[in-house]
């Protein structure tokens, strides 16, 4: 059921928000033990919010465009009264948040009902959602496989049908990678395009929040409710990224892009310059900013950190400032080069993860014939794009009965409208969609 259909039913009084909330909670409690997507079910809060929505309907008021829509948030969004763990056991006893994150506030104001918080890589530093304290989130399409990360719980919760909407965050690909591996839609907005207030940071220079959903229309609706705006008219000159973005891609994914190119009457191949260096610079900046953010706790209690992130944060804290400055200089150069390409194109198509979801027990991916750890390499196609603040709509190839493969529709800053327009067109053509 689409978000607008749920809200339409609730607004018309055909079905109550409480019924939707109870159903979402029941689905979550039923499925979560085998998926480990959710860290906390917020039954009391959800029912109180749902009752309030129903009361507004009964009073003849309009609760908003997401009336009664159940949703979940990555466990780095502040939820009033709860500690914001950011996926770290060492924050389980942090002081409770005194107010909701701004994104949560906006969803609530639109009538949505928060039912759960979701699992993630500790401190959002990873692409796997393998969490020492809260468990490994399993892919709903094949529980022997990872869901991707770091927003893996949020993606799995939507892919499994626990909730039709969730929020994640994306620094180097943490929305786009799990969206691709779980076969759903996800948005990495233009940097700064959606409110970060009350979202636990990772790399301030390119952290963003974004929604997951099961259709382009749902994703766009959530983006607009969250405050997203676009400065384009939704007209698209489309290209496909080659070079770096064509290497190591699963053949079926490459064939999917070929099919899209055929549908669009052919797509020029575009190469971004020095993408490998962009990825290197993104790695450096992530390590340095992450290390600096956590330096006080690294000094005080390093062994309290999740072992999956601890050594990387410690290393990041030891990177000299001159290295960070070199990465920043490269970023400025790369951004200029990318912006020049977007004078000729509105949308560029690229893989998201590039491969099917790796196995939990063997989390490796094959890149150009070489087996490499999934944790670091699932982001090879995503890191160089968010690094310069570009908006990306992550979409699933339509592959019924098969493991998901995902794409990125990449735009210029403020160019989300063109991305959503292309997503709707490809969806209508049966080329992308939830299988």
């Amino acid at each position: 059921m689409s978000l607008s259909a749920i809200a339409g039913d609730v607004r018309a009084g055909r079905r109550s928000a409480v019924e939707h909330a109870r159903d979402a909670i029941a689905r979550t409690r039923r499925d979560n033990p085998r998926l480990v997507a959710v860290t906390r079910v917020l039954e009391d809060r959800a029912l109180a919010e749902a009752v309030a929505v129903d009361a507004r309907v009964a009073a003849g008021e309009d609760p908003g465009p997401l009336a009664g829509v159940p949703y979940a948030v990555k466990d780095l969004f502040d939820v009033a009264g709860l500690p914001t763990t950011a996926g770290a056991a060492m924050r389980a006893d942090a002081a409770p948040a005194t107010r909701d994150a701004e994104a949560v506030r906006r969803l609530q104001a639109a009538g949505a009902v928060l039912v759960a918080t979701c699992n993630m890589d500790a401190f959002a530093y990873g692409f796997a959602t393998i969490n020492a304290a809260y468990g490994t989130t399993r892919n709903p399409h094949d529980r022997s496989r990872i869901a991707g990360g770091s927003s893996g719980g949020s993606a799995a919760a939507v892919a499994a049908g626990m909730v039709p909407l969730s929020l994640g965050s994306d620094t180097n690909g943490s929305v786009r990678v799990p969206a691709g591996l779980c076969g759903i839609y996800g948005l990495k907005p233009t940097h700064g395009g959606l409110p970060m207030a009350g979202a636990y940071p990772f790399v301030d220079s390119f952290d963003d929040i974004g929604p997951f959903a099961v259709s382009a229309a749902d994703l766009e609706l959530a983006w607009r409710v969250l405050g997203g705006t676009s400065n384009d008219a939704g007209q698209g000159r489309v290209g496909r990224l080659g070079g770096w973005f064509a290497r190591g891609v699963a053949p079926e994914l490459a064939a999917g892009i070929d099919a899209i190119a055929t549908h669009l009457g052919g797509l020029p191949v575009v190469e971004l310059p020095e993408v490998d260096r962009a990825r290197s610079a993104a790695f450096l900046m992530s390590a340095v900013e992450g290390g600096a953010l956590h330096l006080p706790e690294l000094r005080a209690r390093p062994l309290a950190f999740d072992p999956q992130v601890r050594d990387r944060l410690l290393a990041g804290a030891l990177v000299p400032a001159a290295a960070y400055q070199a990465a920043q200089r490269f970023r400025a150069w790369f951004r200029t080069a990318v912006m020049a390409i977007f004078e000729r194109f509105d949308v560029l198509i690229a893989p998201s993860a590039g491969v099917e979801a790796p196995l939990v027990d063997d989390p490796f991916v094959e890149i150009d014939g070489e087996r490499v750890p999934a944790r670091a390499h699932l982001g090879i196609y995503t890191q160089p794009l968010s690094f310069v603040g570009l908006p990306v709509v992550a979409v699933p190839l339509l592959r019924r009965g098969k493991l998901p493969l995902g794409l990125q529709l990449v735009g210029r800053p403020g160019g989300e409208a063109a991305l959503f327009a292309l997503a709707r067109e490809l969806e209508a053509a049966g080329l992308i969609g939830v299988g």
Partner: protein
Amino acid sequence: MNDVEFPPADIAGAAASIGLQIPAECLPGVAANLAALAEHLRNVEAHERTA
């Protein structure tokens, strides 16, 4: 990159200079990550040498 040694040969010493004490069990992992970051830095700096 100026005259700062990176990755540092003496990781514990470099850590101590910023108030960090790296547990012994973390040193191999930290060293591996520093080596990877140093490779990324060389990659970035190569751009400046060729630009």
